[in-house]
């Protein structure tokens, strides 16, 4: 065996290790898409809040809807659109790489992502039920728990996602001490950071 062959063998080994233990079909485009969706959502939420403060929601022409319902509608819509986009781009990527979309690696990724995320979601719900004046903590808590979820899941996909998680946590902690600017921090964390991360991933792993 010559040197070239040995190197190829080592390369094969590394490739198989990666492919079998990490989900590498996560597309950077889904990050960009989720970021844009979040920014649009933040814009509409901002408009709704402005209308609310101007006294248009709850009274007048839009007497039927509450500000809470309005914001919830926007939030759920953003989540659904971002998830669908993420699944679509990841599906496309897995097709390109000829890897299954649902296997033990994607299952590991989802489970490890979900544990901190669901915990955070329940925490926020409990917060709202018990302390209705703690609304300002929603944005920081979601950012922090999302960051923890990303770090937890980073073992099962490209490790770059860990860095995104750290950034989300830092942003969340800053937001925690600057209550009242939640929407801006939220837009930065879920919008700008996602777009940045998605672009970096796209150029690093997909554009060759």
């Amino acid at each position, binding site marked *: 065996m010559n*040197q070239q062959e*040995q190197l190829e*063998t080592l390369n094969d080994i590394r490739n*198989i290790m990666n492919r079998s233990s990490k989900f590498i079909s996560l597309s950077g485009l889904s990050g960009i898409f989720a970021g844009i969706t979040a920014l649009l959502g933040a814009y509409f939420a901002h408009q709704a809040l402005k209308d609310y403060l101007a006294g248009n929601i709850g009274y007048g022409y839009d007497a039927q809807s509450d500000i809470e319902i309005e914001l919830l509608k926007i939030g759920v819509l953003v989540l659904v659109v971002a998830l669908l986009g993420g699944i679509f781009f990841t599906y496309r990527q897995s097709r390109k790489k000829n890897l299954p979309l649902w296997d033990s690696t994607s299952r590991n990724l989802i489970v490890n992502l979900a544990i901190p995320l669901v915990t955070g979601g329940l925490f926020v719900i409990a917060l709202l039920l018990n302390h209705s004046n703690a609304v300002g903590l929603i944005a920081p808590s979601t950012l922090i728990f999302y960051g923890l979820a990303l770090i937890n899941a980073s073992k099962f996909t490209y490790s770059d996602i860990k860095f995104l998680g750290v950034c989300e946590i830092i942003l969340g902690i800053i937001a925690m001490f600057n209550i009242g600017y939640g929407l801006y921090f939220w837009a930065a964390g879920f919008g700008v950071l996602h777009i940045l991360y998605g672009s970096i991933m796209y150029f690093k792993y997909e554009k060759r």
Partner: protein
Amino acid sequence: MKNPIGSLNKIFDSRIRLGVMSVLIVNDSVSFNDLKQLLELTDGNLASHLNTLEQAAYIKMHKAFIGRKTNTTYTITPLGKQSFQSHLDALEKMIKGI
């Protein structure tokens, strides 16, 4: 000087067996079908190589049922882990030595 090829493990001469070990060393337990898909092999081909590895006591087979279907999974043994790692070390040494 010691012959570096001497420390290369004969069992890992085959690329397929090397592939199986690579998968098992980073995963707790892997099913036969997942191995087949990852390494792009046929049933018979994979089975014979798994047999060799099992006889060397490098891997362990576990048979279970999901409904009526058999689900065979494989795990790496401590001996297998150690042998694979020293094989990789030997490969590395050879490349550096040349």
